[in-house]
């Protein structure tokens, strides 16, 4: 096993990402600690999704290094990469459920690929996962097109959790949900983090999520992390964007 002595489950060093001549990320450093829920915020278009996609390997980087579970993803061969991919789950912004498969097939798909599991256990686990994300077993035979927005997010989360990952990436998990649904979702992420011992990397714009669900917050701006720390530290910060963000009208409403 690779050295995992340090507490960081994701270790990003000096990342630079460029599209054409525009630098999106420039010398970014970030650590995500094991077992925490990290909320990742920043202005629209700052590159939050780009960073997520860079870490999971969908966007090529110009320079820098990324270590996940203590494994340098650049130096990893295919087998090592697959082993890492098996240990993380990703919830895409639009859910990205396979539209031609039922909910059941969507959840079972990664399990079938990676593990040799009997059909019976597979079906039982599917029901268990659906239960964990707050859905009833009857949903299993529906197609994604027949689900509501909130249900799609939940099913997508169930699929992300199908292999019992240690790390999940959530890209705007509560966007497009009603406040009650979003609140439930935050609660759900918290519960799952406790029960499964997850580490959660959550890109979000939802102040409620930041308050209720996140242990630590990292703020992206100008291609770098401009601040990282607890909610209290964020509120104490004098950075203009942070002040506007955490002391704006909406933030005051959330804090009550």
């Amino acid at each position: 096993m690779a050295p995992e002595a340090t507490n960081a489950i994701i270790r990003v060093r000096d990342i630079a990402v460029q599209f054409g001549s525009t630098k999106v990320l420039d010398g970014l450093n970030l650590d995500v600690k094991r077992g925490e829920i990290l909320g990742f915020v920043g202005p629209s278009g700052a590159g939050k999704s780009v960073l997520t996609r860079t870490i999971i390997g969908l966007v090529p980087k110009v320079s820098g290094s990324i270590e996940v579970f203590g494994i340098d993803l650049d130096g990893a061969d295919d087998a090592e990469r697959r082993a890492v991919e098996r240990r993380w789950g990703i919830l895409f912004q639009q859910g990205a459920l396979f539209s031609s498969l039922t909910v059941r097939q969507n959840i079972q798909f990664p399990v079938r690929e990676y593990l040799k599991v009997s059909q019976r256990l597979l079906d039982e686990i599917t029901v268990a996962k659906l239960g964990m994300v707050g859905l009833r077993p009857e949903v299993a035979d529906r197609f994604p097109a027949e689900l509501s927005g909130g249900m799609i997010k939940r099913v997508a989360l169930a699929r992300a959790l199908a292999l019992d990952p240690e790390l999940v990436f959530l890209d705007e998990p509560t966007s497009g949900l009603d406040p009650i649904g979003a609140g439930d979702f935050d609660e759900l992420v918290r519960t799952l983090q406790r029960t499964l011992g997850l580490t959660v990397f959550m890109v979000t714009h939802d102040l409620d999520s930041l308050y209720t669900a996140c242990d630590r917050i990292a703020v992206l701006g100008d291609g770098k992390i401009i601040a990282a720390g607890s909610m209290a530290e964020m509120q104490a910060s004098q950075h203009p964007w942070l002040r506007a963000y955490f002391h704006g009208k909406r933030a005051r409403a959330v804090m009550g």
Partner: protein
Amino acid sequence: MSGDPTLERISRSNGLALFAAGSWTAGFAPVLEEIVADAEKLTGSRPDISIDVSRVSKLDTFGAWLIERLRRSLTQGGVEPNIAGLSANYSSLVDEVRRVKAAPPIDTTAVTITGMLDQVGRAVVGVGGTMAGLIDMLGAVLAASGRVLIHPRSFRLTSTVHHLEQVCWRAVPIVVLITFLIGCIISQQGIFHFRKFGADIFVVDMLGVLVLREIGVLLVAIMVAGRSGSAYTAELGSMKMREEIDALRTMGFDPIEVLILPRMLALVIALPILAFLGAIAALYGGGLVAWLYGGVDPEAFLLRLRDAISIDHFTVGIIKAPVMAAVIGIVACVEGLAVQGSAESLGQHTTSSVVKGIFFVIVMDGVFAIFFASIGM
């Protein structure tokens, strides 16, 4: 790291203790299932069974569920086992799993003879629905054209020109190339066989009549159905999937007028032009082969062509073109709007757009053949 999972049985005076150890995780699922299936047989053999999980080094949903499965089947057998030694980290996971309702619904889609007959029946009934859908769309398009004629300002010229570029201008190279090659082949085959009885020159008659009346327009229509019909279905289908068509409707636009009419019009204009170019290319290719392979020099070819064909042959061919274009367009649009939410559905409808388009083009060609024969053209 933890090793293979085990479930040790230790007899006690008042019952049996099961000691789970090792890592009870997804990676060991097959082994775990066997272990649990084995232990399930203990049902009823002992009055008291306890499951001790204190030595489990790693537990995930799979392992927790299998312990839960064991607990449930033992309970069903009449012995209520108690689970001991649960560490704080894992207790919430085990609680979570305990709330899972048993007996998941199993999806069974068995293939039976009645099922197959059922499908055939449905398909036959579906043909009626398809025809009705096509006639419905034809009516809607005609109604929309009527409205546009009354209010010419609502006509979407830009869109029509855009589609004209897509289906006509950009199709020219491939259409010309393929019809040219077909002309060459017809000519070569004709000369090869006609030469046996010294009738080389009649290849010109065959080529002229065949290309202008039938092959030219039919071949081009089939190419257009494959090239543009499929594109229309895919475009409209993905717009349907993303609710873009609903958005148009709610803004007070008629999707038929905005999306379908320009496409239909572009196709109706494009197909005669392509059929004409295709016929010319085929004649050129045929003439070239007749000259190089059959020794019929161009002057003789043209002379013979003038005698062999009349304007009627050309008219018959070109009259069919816009009708075929309308058929292809209507089929493509109906299929596009029938797309449901999934990627698979989009693929199915695009396929059926091309298949039905080609089928109807050939049927139309047969109808026209009977019609022109009976009016003596």
